[in-house]
Protein backbone atom coordinates (compact mmCIF):
# COMPACT_ATOMS: atom_id res chain seq x y z
CA UNK A 1 0.00 0.00 0.00
CA UNK A 2 1.30 3.43 -0.98
CA UNK A 3 -0.63 6.44 0.18
CA UNK A 4 -0.03 10.13 0.70
CA UNK A 5 -0.27 9.78 4.46
CA UNK A 6 1.90 9.94 7.54
CA UNK A 7 0.46 6.82 9.12
CA UNK A 8 -2.87 5.01 9.04
CA UNK A 9 -3.60 6.41 12.50
CA UNK A 10 -3.14 10.04 11.53
CA UNK A 11 -5.17 10.11 8.31
CA UNK A 12 -8.29 11.76 9.70
CA UNK A 13 -6.47 14.21 11.93
CA UNK A 14 -4.18 15.26 9.08
CA UNK A 15 -7.05 15.67 6.65
CA UNK A 16 -8.99 17.77 9.14
CA UNK A 17 -5.97 20.04 9.63
CA UNK A 18 -5.83 20.41 5.88
CA UNK A 19 -9.52 21.18 5.57
CA UNK A 20 -9.25 23.75 8.33
CA UNK A 21 -6.37 25.48 6.57
CA UNK A 22 -7.92 25.28 3.11
CA UNK A 23 -11.37 26.60 3.93
CA UNK A 24 -11.72 29.74 6.02
CA UNK A 25 -15.48 29.33 5.66
CA UNK A 26 -15.29 26.27 7.91
CA UNK A 27 -14.71 25.92 11.63
CA UNK A 28 -12.93 22.65 12.25
CA UNK A 29 -12.95 21.34 15.81
CA UNK A 30 -9.97 19.02 15.68
CA UNK A 31 -10.58 17.55 19.11
CA UNK A 32 -14.24 16.68 18.73
CA UNK A 33 -13.88 16.10 14.99
CA UNK A 34 -16.66 18.40 14.00
CA UNK A 35 -16.73 20.53 10.87
CA UNK A 36 -19.17 23.43 11.03
CA UNK A 37 -19.71 26.83 9.47
CA UNK A 38 -17.19 29.42 10.55
CA UNK A 39 -19.98 31.89 11.18
CA UNK A 40 -21.76 29.48 13.51
CA UNK A 41 -25.33 28.26 13.23
CA UNK A 42 -27.82 30.56 11.57
CA UNK A 43 -30.25 31.67 14.26
CA UNK A 44 -33.85 30.79 13.58
CA UNK A 45 -32.96 28.33 10.84
CA UNK A 46 -33.13 24.56 10.98
CA UNK A 47 -29.64 23.10 11.28
CA UNK A 48 -28.52 20.15 9.14
CA UNK A 49 -26.06 17.61 10.44
CA UNK A 50 -24.68 14.66 8.61
CA UNK A 51 -21.75 12.39 9.18
CA UNK A 52 -20.46 8.93 8.69
CA UNK A 53 -17.23 7.17 8.11
CA UNK A 54 -14.40 9.10 6.47
CA UNK A 55 -13.02 8.13 3.08
CA UNK A 56 -15.98 9.52 1.11
CA UNK A 57 -14.62 13.04 0.67
CA UNK A 58 -15.90 15.59 -0.16
CA UNK A 59 -18.88 13.99 1.65
CA UNK A 60 -19.74 15.24 4.31
CA UNK A 61 -17.37 17.99 5.45
CA UNK A 62 -17.06 19.43 1.96
CA UNK A 63 -20.79 20.11 1.96
CA UNK A 64 -20.80 22.29 5.05
CA UNK A 65 -21.73 25.85 4.20
CA UNK A 66 -24.48 28.20 3.13
CA UNK A 67 -27.42 26.36 1.61
CA UNK A 68 -26.31 22.89 2.62
CA UNK A 69 -25.03 21.32 5.86
CA UNK A 70 -24.56 23.20 9.12
CA UNK A 71 -22.12 20.67 10.54
CA UNK A 72 -20.58 17.29 9.80
CA UNK A 73 -19.17 14.56 12.00
CA UNK A 74 -16.49 12.51 10.23
CA UNK A 75 -15.76 9.10 11.77
CA UNK A 76 -12.73 6.94 11.30
CA UNK A 77 -12.27 5.62 7.76
CA UNK A 78 -15.45 3.74 6.80
CA UNK A 79 -16.59 3.79 10.44
CA UNK A 80 -19.53 5.81 11.67
CA UNK A 81 -18.81 8.64 14.08
CA UNK A 82 -19.50 8.24 17.79
CA UNK A 83 -22.46 9.67 19.71
CA UNK A 84 -20.61 12.41 21.60
CA UNK A 85 -19.12 13.65 18.35
CA UNK A 86 -22.50 13.73 16.64
CA UNK A 87 -23.88 15.54 19.67
CA UNK A 88 -21.16 18.18 19.37
CA UNK A 89 -22.01 18.61 15.68
CA UNK A 90 -25.68 18.86 16.57
CA UNK A 91 -25.01 21.61 19.07
CA UNK A 92 -22.85 23.47 16.55
CA UNK A 93 -25.74 23.26 14.08
CA UNK A 94 -28.48 24.33 16.44
CA UNK A 95 -29.88 27.77 15.69
CA UNK A 96 -32.90 27.29 17.90
CA UNK A 97 -35.15 25.80 15.23
CA UNK A 98 -34.12 22.19 15.70
CA UNK A 99 -31.67 19.99 13.86
CA UNK A 100 -32.11 17.47 11.07
CA UNK A 101 -29.87 14.42 11.18
CA UNK A 102 -29.19 13.04 7.72
CA UNK A 103 -28.10 9.47 8.29
CA UNK A 104 -27.02 6.98 5.66
CA UNK A 105 -28.61 3.62 6.30
CA UNK A 106 -25.87 1.53 7.88
CA UNK A 107 -26.33 -0.20 11.21
CA UNK A 108 -23.41 1.69 12.73
CA UNK A 109 -24.56 5.09 11.52
CA UNK A 110 -28.14 4.49 12.52
CA UNK A 111 -27.21 3.32 16.02
CA UNK A 112 -24.69 6.04 16.74
CA UNK A 113 -26.95 8.80 15.41
CA UNK A 114 -29.84 7.38 17.44
CA UNK A 115 -27.72 7.56 20.60
CA UNK A 116 -26.66 11.09 19.73
CA UNK A 117 -30.28 12.14 19.20
CA UNK A 118 -31.09 10.86 22.67
CA UNK A 119 -28.21 12.84 24.12
CA UNK A 120 -29.41 15.94 22.24
CA UNK A 121 -32.88 15.42 23.61
CA UNK A 122 -31.37 15.48 27.10
CA UNK A 123 -29.99 18.90 26.23
CA UNK A 124 -33.31 20.10 24.81
CA UNK A 125 -32.23 20.25 21.19
CA UNK A 126 -35.00 18.91 18.99
CA UNK A 127 -33.68 16.42 16.48
CA UNK A 128 -35.48 14.71 13.62
CA UNK A 129 -33.63 12.03 11.66
CA UNK A 130 -33.94 11.09 8.04
CA UNK A 131 -32.29 7.88 6.94
CA UNK A 132 -31.19 7.74 3.30
CA UNK A 133 -31.40 4.41 1.51
CA UNK A 134 -31.23 5.02 -2.23
CA UNK A 135 -29.04 2.09 -3.28
CA UNK A 136 -30.99 0.05 -5.81
CA UNK A 137 -28.35 -2.68 -5.65
CA UNK A 138 -29.62 -3.96 -2.32
CA UNK A 139 -32.90 -5.66 -1.74
CA UNK A 140 -34.97 -3.82 0.83
CA UNK A 141 -36.31 -6.74 2.77
CA UNK A 142 -36.26 -8.28 6.21
CA UNK A 143 -33.40 -10.38 4.91
CA UNK A 144 -31.04 -7.42 4.75
CA UNK A 145 -30.19 -4.44 6.92
CA UNK A 146 -32.18 -2.55 4.30
CA UNK A 147 -30.86 -0.48 1.46
CA UNK A 148 -27.70 1.50 1.82
CA UNK A 149 -27.61 5.27 1.73
CA UNK A 150 -25.29 6.29 -1.10
CA UNK A 151 -25.15 9.03 -3.76
CA UNK A 152 -28.67 10.27 -3.12
CA UNK A 153 -27.39 11.59 0.20
CA UNK A 154 -25.71 14.43 -1.71
CA UNK A 155 -29.06 15.41 -3.21
CA UNK A 156 -30.75 15.21 0.18
CA UNK A 157 -28.12 17.44 1.77
CA UNK A 158 -28.30 20.03 -1.00
CA UNK A 159 -32.06 20.21 -1.29
CA UNK A 160 -32.91 19.99 2.41
CA UNK A 161 -30.19 22.57 3.01
CA UNK A 162 -31.84 24.95 0.57
CA UNK A 163 -35.19 24.45 2.27
CA UNK A 164 -33.66 25.17 5.66
CA UNK A 165 -31.98 28.28 4.32
CA UNK A 166 -35.36 29.45 3.01
CA UNK A 167 -36.72 29.24 6.54
CA UNK A 168 -38.77 26.03 6.38
CA UNK A 169 -39.44 24.47 9.78
CA UNK A 170 -37.90 21.22 10.98
CA UNK A 171 -40.74 18.93 10.01
CA UNK A 172 -40.97 20.50 6.58
CA UNK A 173 -37.24 20.20 5.99
CA UNK A 174 -37.34 16.59 7.17
CA UNK A 175 -40.29 15.91 4.87
CA UNK A 176 -38.43 17.31 1.89
CA UNK A 177 -35.34 15.29 2.79
CA UNK A 178 -37.40 12.10 2.94
CA UNK A 179 -39.06 12.94 -0.32
CA UNK A 180 -35.74 13.46 -2.08
CA UNK A 181 -34.56 10.13 -0.76
CA UNK A 182 -37.74 8.45 -1.99
CA UNK A 183 -37.48 9.75 -5.53
CA UNK A 184 -33.77 8.91 -5.89
CA UNK A 185 -32.08 5.66 -6.82
CA UNK A 186 -28.41 4.85 -7.24
CA UNK A 187 -26.24 2.04 -8.50
CA UNK A 188 -22.47 1.57 -8.54
CA UNK A 189 -19.88 -0.55 -10.31
CA UNK A 190 -16.26 -0.87 -9.25
CA UNK A 191 -13.20 -1.79 -11.33
CA UNK A 192 -10.66 -1.90 -8.51
CA UNK A 193 -11.28 -1.76 -4.76
CA UNK A 194 -10.00 1.06 -2.58
CA UNK A 195 -7.53 0.43 0.21
CA UNK A 196 -8.40 1.28 3.81
CA UNK A 197 -5.14 2.67 5.26
CA UNK A 198 -5.38 0.55 8.40
CA UNK A 199 -6.07 -2.59 6.35
CA UNK A 200 -3.24 -1.96 3.90
CA UNK A 201 -4.73 -3.87 1.00
CA UNK A 202 -7.73 -3.50 -1.31
CA UNK A 203 -11.13 -4.56 0.05
CA UNK A 204 -11.51 -7.14 -2.71
CA UNK A 205 -9.51 -8.46 -5.62
CA UNK A 206 -10.70 -8.45 -9.20
CA UNK A 207 -9.16 -10.06 -12.24
CA UNK A 208 -8.28 -7.95 -15.24
CA UNK A 209 -11.56 -8.75 -16.94
CA UNK A 210 -13.83 -8.51 -13.91
CA UNK A 211 -15.96 -5.82 -12.35
CA UNK A 212 -17.88 -5.75 -9.10
CA UNK A 213 -21.55 -4.97 -9.70
CA UNK A 214 -23.70 -3.20 -7.15
CA UNK A 215 -21.01 -2.10 -4.74
CA UNK A 216 -21.61 0.28 -1.88
CA UNK A 217 -19.30 3.07 -0.80
CA UNK A 218 -17.11 1.14 1.63
CA UNK A 219 -15.00 -1.08 -0.57
CA UNK A 220 -17.31 -3.93 0.29
CA UNK A 221 -17.90 -6.53 -2.39
CA UNK A 222 -21.02 -6.07 -4.50
CA UNK A 223 -23.88 -8.45 -5.03
CA UNK A 224 -22.13 -10.14 -7.89
CA UNK A 225 -19.07 -10.18 -10.01
CA UNK A 226 -19.42 -9.42 -13.70
CA UNK A 227 -17.32 -9.28 -16.82
CA UNK A 228 -15.61 -6.06 -17.79
CA UNK A 229 -17.51 -4.36 -20.62
CA UNK A 230 -17.56 -1.07 -22.52
CA UNK A 231 -18.85 1.86 -20.47
CA UNK A 232 -21.95 1.90 -22.67
CA UNK A 233 -22.88 -1.50 -21.27
CA UNK A 234 -21.87 -0.76 -17.66
CA UNK A 235 -23.99 2.38 -17.64
CA UNK A 236 -26.83 0.54 -19.33
CA UNK A 237 -26.67 -2.21 -16.72
CA UNK A 238 -26.75 0.36 -13.92
CA UNK A 239 -29.68 2.28 -15.36
CA UNK A 240 -31.58 -0.92 -16.06
CA UNK A 241 -31.36 -1.78 -12.37
CA UNK A 242 -32.42 1.71 -11.34
CA UNK A 243 -35.23 1.81 -13.90
CA UNK A 244 -36.59 -1.58 -12.87
CA UNK A 245 -36.76 -0.34 -9.31
CA UNK A 246 -38.20 3.10 -9.97
CA UNK A 247 -38.96 4.09 -13.55
CA UNK A 248 -36.71 6.78 -14.96
CA UNK A 249 -38.98 9.28 -16.69
CA UNK A 250 -39.67 12.97 -17.05
CA UNK A 251 -37.11 15.51 -15.93
CA UNK A 252 -34.35 14.05 -13.84
CA UNK A 253 -31.30 15.15 -11.90
CA UNK A 254 -28.41 12.81 -12.64
CA UNK A 255 -25.12 12.43 -10.87
CA UNK A 256 -22.32 10.42 -12.41
CA UNK A 257 -19.99 10.11 -9.50
CA UNK A 258 -16.43 8.88 -9.37
CA UNK A 259 -15.37 6.54 -6.61
CA UNK A 260 -12.09 8.38 -6.07
CA UNK A 261 -9.61 6.64 -8.37
CA UNK A 262 -11.30 7.06 -11.75
CA UNK A 263 -10.36 10.13 -13.74
CA UNK A 264 -12.79 12.84 -14.78
CA UNK A 265 -12.29 12.13 -18.49
CA UNK A 266 -13.84 8.68 -17.90
CA UNK A 267 -16.67 10.08 -15.81
CA UNK A 268 -17.64 12.44 -18.62
CA UNK A 269 -17.69 9.50 -21.00
CA UNK A 270 -19.92 7.61 -18.57
CA UNK A 271 -22.21 10.61 -18.28
CA UNK A 272 -22.56 10.79 -22.06
CA UNK A 273 -23.78 7.19 -22.02
CA UNK A 274 -26.18 7.92 -19.17
CA UNK A 275 -27.71 10.84 -21.03
CA UNK A 276 -28.12 8.74 -24.18
CA UNK A 277 -29.77 5.93 -22.20
CA UNK A 278 -32.16 8.27 -20.40
CA UNK A 279 -33.13 10.15 -23.54
CA UNK A 280 -33.61 6.82 -25.28
CA UNK A 281 -36.11 5.96 -22.54
CA UNK A 282 -38.00 9.20 -22.91
CA UNK A 283 -36.51 11.03 -19.95
CA UNK A 284 -34.66 14.33 -19.89
CA UNK A 285 -31.54 15.18 -17.93
CA UNK A 286 -32.47 18.61 -16.65
CA UNK A 287 -29.64 18.97 -14.12
CA UNK A 288 -26.45 17.03 -13.49
CA UNK A 289 -23.29 16.57 -11.51
CA UNK A 290 -20.24 14.83 -12.96
CA UNK A 291 -17.25 14.31 -10.72
CA UNK A 292 -16.08 12.94 -7.37
CA UNK A 293 -18.87 13.74 -4.92
CA UNK A 294 -19.12 10.66 -2.72
CA UNK A 295 -16.01 8.54 -2.94
CA UNK A 296 -14.54 5.35 -1.57
CA UNK A 297 -10.92 6.33 -1.00
CA UNK A 298 -8.96 5.44 -4.14
CA UNK A 299 -11.50 2.96 -5.49
CA UNK A 300 -11.89 2.91 -9.27
CA UNK A 301 -15.41 2.92 -10.61
CA UNK A 302 -18.49 5.06 -10.80
CA UNK A 303 -21.99 5.38 -9.45
CA UNK A 304 -25.09 6.81 -11.04
CA UNK A 305 -27.83 8.51 -9.06
CA UNK A 306 -31.11 9.53 -10.67
CA UNK A 307 -33.67 11.78 -9.00
CA UNK A 308 -37.08 12.72 -10.36
CA UNK A 309 -37.43 16.48 -10.52
CA UNK A 310 -40.49 18.62 -9.96
CA UNK A 311 -40.70 22.41 -9.84
CA UNK A 312 -40.07 22.61 -6.12
CA UNK A 313 -37.09 20.29 -6.18
CA UNK A 314 -35.67 22.12 -9.17
CA UNK A 315 -35.95 25.47 -7.41
CA UNK A 316 -34.30 24.10 -4.27
CA UNK A 317 -31.56 22.42 -6.32
CA UNK A 318 -30.85 25.66 -8.16
CA UNK A 319 -30.85 27.75 -4.97
CA UNK A 320 -27.48 29.26 -4.04
CA UNK A 321 -25.00 27.01 -2.30
CA UNK A 322 -21.55 27.88 -1.03
CA UNK A 323 -19.54 24.97 0.27
CA UNK A 324 -16.04 23.74 -0.54
CA UNK A 325 -17.33 21.07 -2.91
CA UNK A 326 -20.58 22.46 -4.30
CA UNK A 327 -20.92 26.10 -5.10
CA UNK A 328 -23.15 28.20 -7.26
CA UNK A 329 -25.24 31.30 -7.14
CA UNK A 330 -22.96 33.26 -4.81
Amino acid sequence: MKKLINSPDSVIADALRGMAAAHPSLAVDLENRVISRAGGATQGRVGLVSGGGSGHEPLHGGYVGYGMLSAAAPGEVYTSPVPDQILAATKAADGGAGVLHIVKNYTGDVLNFRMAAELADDEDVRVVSVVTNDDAAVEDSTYTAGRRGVGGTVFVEKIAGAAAEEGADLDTVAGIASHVNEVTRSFAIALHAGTVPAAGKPGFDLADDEVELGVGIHGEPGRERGKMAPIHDLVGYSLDVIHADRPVSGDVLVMVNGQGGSPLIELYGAFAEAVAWIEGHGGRVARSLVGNYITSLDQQGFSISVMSLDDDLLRLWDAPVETPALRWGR
Partner: protein
Amino acid sequence: MAFDAQTATAWITAAEAAVKADEARLTSLDAAIGDGDHGANMARGLAAALTNIAERAPSTPGDVLVAAGRGIVAKTGGASGPLYGSAFRRAGKALGDTASASAEEVGAALEAALTAIKELGGANEGDKTMVDALTPAVAAFQAVAADGGPLAAAAAAAADGAEQGLAATVPMQARKGRASYLGPRSVGHEDPGAASTALILRALAEVVQ
Protein backbone atom coordinates in the same frame (compact mmCIF):
# COMPACT_ATOMS: atom_id res chain seq x y z
CA MET B 1 -12.55 -17.48 41.98
CA ALA B 2 -14.85 -14.50 42.52
CA PHE B 3 -15.79 -11.93 39.93
CA ASP B 4 -14.76 -8.69 41.61
CA ALA B 5 -13.61 -5.32 40.28
CA GLN B 6 -10.09 -6.57 39.85
CA THR B 7 -11.20 -9.63 37.89
CA ALA B 8 -13.52 -7.55 35.76
CA THR B 9 -10.67 -5.19 34.98
CA ALA B 10 -8.40 -8.12 34.23
CA TRP B 11 -11.04 -9.43 31.82
CA ILE B 12 -11.21 -6.20 29.84
CA THR B 13 -7.42 -6.00 29.88
CA ALA B 14 -7.13 -9.54 28.53
CA ALA B 15 -9.86 -8.91 25.96
CA GLU B 16 -8.05 -5.83 24.75
CA ALA B 17 -4.81 -7.77 24.42
CA ALA B 18 -6.52 -10.62 22.59
CA VAL B 19 -8.24 -8.32 20.11
CA LYS B 20 -5.07 -6.38 19.54
CA ALA B 21 -3.15 -9.60 18.87
CA ASP B 22 -5.84 -10.73 16.43
CA GLU B 23 -6.65 -7.35 14.94
CA ALA B 24 -5.51 -8.30 11.44
CA ARG B 25 -7.62 -11.45 11.42
CA LEU B 26 -10.75 -9.57 12.52
CA THR B 27 -10.10 -6.98 9.84
CA SER B 28 -9.69 -9.52 7.09
CA LEU B 29 -12.85 -11.33 8.14
CA ASP B 30 -14.61 -7.97 7.87
CA ALA B 31 -12.98 -7.19 4.52
CA ALA B 32 -14.42 -10.42 3.12
CA ILE B 33 -18.05 -9.64 3.90
CA GLY B 34 -18.02 -6.13 5.38
CA ASP B 35 -15.86 -3.05 5.18
CA GLY B 36 -12.59 -4.15 6.73
CA ASP B 37 -12.56 -2.14 9.91
CA HIS B 38 -13.71 -4.50 12.62
CA GLY B 39 -10.21 -5.18 13.94
CA ALA B 40 -9.38 -1.48 14.19
CA ASN B 41 -12.78 -0.72 15.70
CA MET B 42 -12.46 -3.34 18.42
CA ALA B 43 -8.87 -2.42 19.22
CA ARG B 44 -9.82 1.26 19.52
CA GLY B 45 -12.96 0.49 21.50
CA LEU B 46 -11.37 -1.81 24.06
CA ALA B 47 -8.42 0.53 24.49
CA ALA B 48 -10.95 3.26 25.28
CA ALA B 49 -12.65 0.91 27.71
CA LEU B 50 -9.37 0.45 29.55
CA THR B 51 -8.68 4.18 29.61
CA ASN B 52 -12.11 4.87 30.98
CA ILE B 53 -11.72 2.21 33.67
CA ALA B 54 -8.33 3.62 34.64
CA GLU B 55 -9.74 7.15 34.85
CA ARG B 56 -12.78 6.25 36.93
CA ALA B 57 -11.11 3.58 39.08
CA PRO B 58 -14.43 1.86 39.74
CA SER B 59 -14.65 -0.27 42.87
CA THR B 60 -17.31 -2.79 41.89
CA PRO B 61 -17.30 -5.22 38.94
CA GLY B 62 -20.59 -3.68 37.81
CA ASP B 63 -19.03 -0.24 37.61
CA VAL B 64 -16.03 -1.65 35.80
CA LEU B 65 -18.25 -3.04 33.07
CA VAL B 66 -20.33 0.15 32.90
CA ALA B 67 -17.13 2.16 32.51
CA ALA B 68 -15.95 -0.23 29.82
CA GLY B 69 -19.23 0.08 27.97
CA ARG B 70 -19.20 3.87 28.10
CA GLY B 71 -15.62 3.93 26.84
CA ILE B 72 -16.54 1.65 23.97
CA VAL B 73 -19.57 3.68 22.90
CA ALA B 74 -17.60 6.90 23.09
CA LYS B 75 -14.74 5.81 20.88
CA THR B 76 -15.59 2.87 18.67
CA GLY B 77 -18.16 4.04 16.14
CA GLY B 78 -19.51 1.58 13.60
CA ALA B 79 -22.09 -1.05 14.43
CA SER B 80 -19.93 -2.77 17.01
CA GLY B 81 -19.46 0.36 19.14
CA PRO B 82 -23.06 0.87 20.25
CA LEU B 83 -23.71 -2.88 20.35
CA TYR B 84 -20.73 -3.91 22.49
CA GLY B 85 -20.92 -0.66 24.45
CA SER B 86 -24.55 -1.25 25.42
CA ALA B 87 -23.82 -4.88 26.12
CA PHE B 88 -21.09 -4.10 28.66
CA ARG B 89 -23.10 -1.28 30.19
CA ARG B 90 -26.17 -3.44 30.65
CA ALA B 91 -24.10 -6.30 32.00
CA GLY B 92 -22.57 -3.90 34.49
CA LYS B 93 -25.97 -2.56 35.54
CA ALA B 94 -27.22 -6.13 35.94
CA LEU B 95 -24.44 -6.78 38.45
CA GLY B 96 -25.77 -3.96 40.63
CA ASP B 97 -23.40 -2.80 43.39
CA THR B 98 -22.15 -6.14 44.50
CA ALA B 99 -18.43 -6.18 45.27
CA SER B 100 -18.05 -9.74 44.13
CA ALA B 101 -20.43 -11.55 41.82
CA SER B 102 -21.25 -15.25 41.84
CA ALA B 103 -21.20 -17.42 38.75
CA GLU B 104 -24.97 -17.18 38.54
CA GLU B 105 -24.85 -13.39 38.79
CA VAL B 106 -22.24 -13.22 36.04
CA GLY B 107 -24.45 -15.48 33.95
CA ALA B 108 -27.37 -13.10 34.42
CA ALA B 109 -25.13 -10.19 33.46
CA LEU B 110 -24.09 -11.96 30.25
CA GLU B 111 -27.73 -12.60 29.48
CA ALA B 112 -28.46 -8.89 29.99
CA ALA B 113 -25.67 -8.14 27.54
CA LEU B 114 -27.23 -10.42 24.95
CA THR B 115 -30.62 -8.84 25.46
CA ALA B 116 -29.12 -5.38 24.98
CA ILE B 117 -27.54 -6.37 21.68
CA LYS B 118 -30.72 -7.98 20.39
CA GLU B 119 -32.87 -5.02 21.37
CA LEU B 120 -30.57 -2.43 19.88
CA GLY B 121 -29.62 -4.26 16.70
CA GLY B 122 -32.78 -6.25 16.15
CA ALA B 123 -30.83 -9.36 15.19
CA ASN B 124 -31.86 -12.89 16.07
CA GLU B 125 -29.98 -16.12 16.07
CA GLY B 126 -29.18 -17.20 12.54
CA ASP B 127 -28.73 -13.66 11.20
CA LYS B 128 -24.93 -14.15 11.17
CA THR B 129 -23.93 -11.62 13.81
CA MET B 130 -22.28 -11.54 17.20
CA VAL B 131 -25.63 -12.78 18.54
CA ASP B 132 -24.80 -16.18 17.07
CA ALA B 133 -21.69 -16.42 19.22
CA LEU B 134 -23.12 -14.86 22.34
CA THR B 135 -26.35 -16.87 22.48
CA PRO B 136 -24.74 -20.33 22.85
CA ALA B 137 -22.10 -18.81 25.13
CA VAL B 138 -24.69 -17.45 27.53
CA ALA B 139 -26.63 -20.72 27.44
CA ALA B 140 -23.52 -22.79 28.19
CA PHE B 141 -22.44 -20.41 30.95
CA GLN B 142 -25.84 -20.53 32.62
CA ALA B 143 -26.13 -24.29 32.32
CA VAL B 144 -22.88 -24.77 34.26
CA ALA B 145 -23.74 -22.06 36.79
CA ALA B 146 -27.25 -23.43 37.32
CA ASP B 147 -25.70 -26.77 38.23
CA GLY B 148 -23.64 -24.94 40.85
CA GLY B 149 -20.50 -25.10 38.75
CA PRO B 150 -17.68 -22.66 39.47
CA LEU B 151 -17.09 -19.44 37.53
CA ALA B 152 -14.03 -20.93 35.82
CA ALA B 153 -15.98 -23.88 34.45
CA ALA B 154 -18.90 -21.70 33.38
CA ALA B 155 -16.61 -19.26 31.60
CA ALA B 156 -14.74 -22.07 29.86
CA ALA B 157 -18.04 -23.50 28.67
CA ALA B 158 -19.10 -20.06 27.47
CA ALA B 159 -15.88 -19.63 25.51
CA ASP B 160 -16.35 -23.03 23.90
CA GLY B 161 -19.94 -22.16 23.15
CA ALA B 162 -18.96 -18.88 21.54
CA GLU B 163 -16.37 -20.58 19.38
CA GLN B 164 -18.91 -23.16 18.26
CA GLY B 165 -21.37 -20.36 17.61
CA LEU B 166 -18.71 -18.60 15.56
CA ALA B 167 -18.10 -21.72 13.49
CA ALA B 168 -21.81 -22.02 12.94
CA THR B 169 -21.91 -18.58 11.30
CA VAL B 170 -19.85 -19.83 8.34
CA PRO B 171 -22.71 -21.42 6.36
CA MET B 172 -25.19 -18.69 7.30
CA GLN B 173 -26.40 -15.97 4.96
CA ALA B 174 -26.24 -12.62 6.73
CA ARG B 175 -29.48 -10.78 7.39
CA LYS B 176 -28.12 -7.95 9.54
CA GLY B 177 -25.21 -5.54 9.28
CA ARG B 178 -23.16 -4.82 6.21
CA ALA B 179 -22.69 -8.45 5.31
CA SER B 180 -26.40 -8.66 4.49
CA TYR B 181 -25.79 -6.49 1.41
CA LEU B 182 -23.87 -9.36 -0.10
CA GLY B 183 -26.86 -11.68 -0.05
CA PRO B 184 -25.83 -15.26 -0.83
CA ARG B 185 -22.20 -14.15 -1.21
CA SER B 186 -22.00 -13.73 2.56
CA VAL B 187 -22.17 -17.50 2.92
CA GLY B 188 -18.88 -19.30 3.59
CA HIS B 189 -17.23 -16.79 5.91
CA GLU B 190 -17.02 -16.36 9.68
CA ASP B 191 -18.83 -13.31 10.98
CA PRO B 192 -16.28 -10.81 12.32
CA GLY B 193 -18.45 -9.71 15.26
CA ALA B 194 -18.98 -13.34 16.26
CA ALA B 195 -15.20 -13.76 16.08
CA SER B 196 -14.58 -10.83 18.42
CA THR B 197 -17.24 -12.14 20.80
CA ALA B 198 -15.44 -15.48 20.90
CA LEU B 199 -12.16 -13.71 21.69
CA ILE B 200 -13.75 -11.71 24.49
CA LEU B 201 -15.30 -14.78 26.11
CA ARG B 202 -12.09 -16.78 25.77
CA ALA B 203 -10.36 -13.88 27.53
CA LEU B 204 -12.88 -14.19 30.37
CA ALA B 205 -12.29 -17.93 30.64
CA GLU B 206 -8.54 -17.43 30.85
CA VAL B 207 -8.76 -14.68 33.43
CA VAL B 208 -11.01 -16.60 35.82
CA GLN B 209 -9.33 -19.93 35.24
